[in-house]
């Protein structure tokens, strides 16, 4: 199918001028992918939160019960899961601040793409600090 305009646009309407629709933050490229990632990380964090409240509630059952479930968090596979979780939280946090800046800072929408790359940069720095330390804790437990 050709993507040529077929003249359905009334005169004076906002016909697309380029390959993608203009004038929107949330369609295509950085604006859209940050939004997609914000949703996916948000869902993941929410479901972890449900589990995390329940596992912590075991302190009210018995010390042994809590320690038993905590020992499952210390195995290497869960350790990798925790790394992914912290990655999701860090992205959601930094991108959330980017969203606030887009909404409340006059120049926010203008710099939203730059801010997306700042988010990615901060995320990389955060993970570079966190991942080696956490994996050290997790894998020194093995054996």
């Amino acid at each position, binding site marked *: 199918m050709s993507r040529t305009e077929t003249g359905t646009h009334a005169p004076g309407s906002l016909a697309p001028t380029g390959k993608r629709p203009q004038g929107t933050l949330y369609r295509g490229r950085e604006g859209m992918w940050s939004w997609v990632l914000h949703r996916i990380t948000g869902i993941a964090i929410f479901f972890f939160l449900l589990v995390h409240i329940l596992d912590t509630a075991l302190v009210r059952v018995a010390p042994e019960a809590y320690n038993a479930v905590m020992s499952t968090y210390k195995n290497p596979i869960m350790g990798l899961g925790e790394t992914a979780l912290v990655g999701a939280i860090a992205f959601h946090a930094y991108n959330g*601040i980017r969203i606030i800046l887009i909404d409340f800072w006059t120049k926010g929408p203008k710099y939203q793409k730059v801010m997306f790359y700042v988010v990615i940069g901060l995320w990389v720095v955060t993970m570079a600090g966190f991942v080696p330390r956490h994996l050290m*804790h997790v894998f020194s437990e093995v054996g």
Partner: protein
Amino acid sequence: MATTIEAPRSPYSRAPRSRGINWEKWGWMYMRASGLVLVVLIFGHLIVNLVLGDGIKAIDFAFVGGKWSNPFWQVWDCLMLWLAMIHGANGMRTLVNDYASHRTTRGILKGALLFSVIVLITLGTLVIFTFDPCPAGAPADLLASFCSAS
């Protein structure tokens, strides 16, 4: 019933909200306000529990006992619980509204969200404030060191 069709592209006029609270607006504000506080609370939580000391290796009943015998961490965790649970559930509500196309499905999913918020916030708050770091009859080696120093 007569249906009036407006002229194409006539300017969209917002119906003036004469009465009632604009819940969607305050929900929108809540996501941003709670988000900022949660960044501080959760980063602090992660640094203290996963980065400092022996990280996740050190987390056990005695570790929690040490933290929650201090009102500072009780308030910290309680605030984190309430803010995060409501922030998360409200975010999930947005997704349900976006992706669940049937009215009944939306109702069921949002009902489940409301249910989980009420149950988990109640449970979590009770756990934080009724927690006993030195439960009677528990093996002393599982408890915080201050339990045996009586």
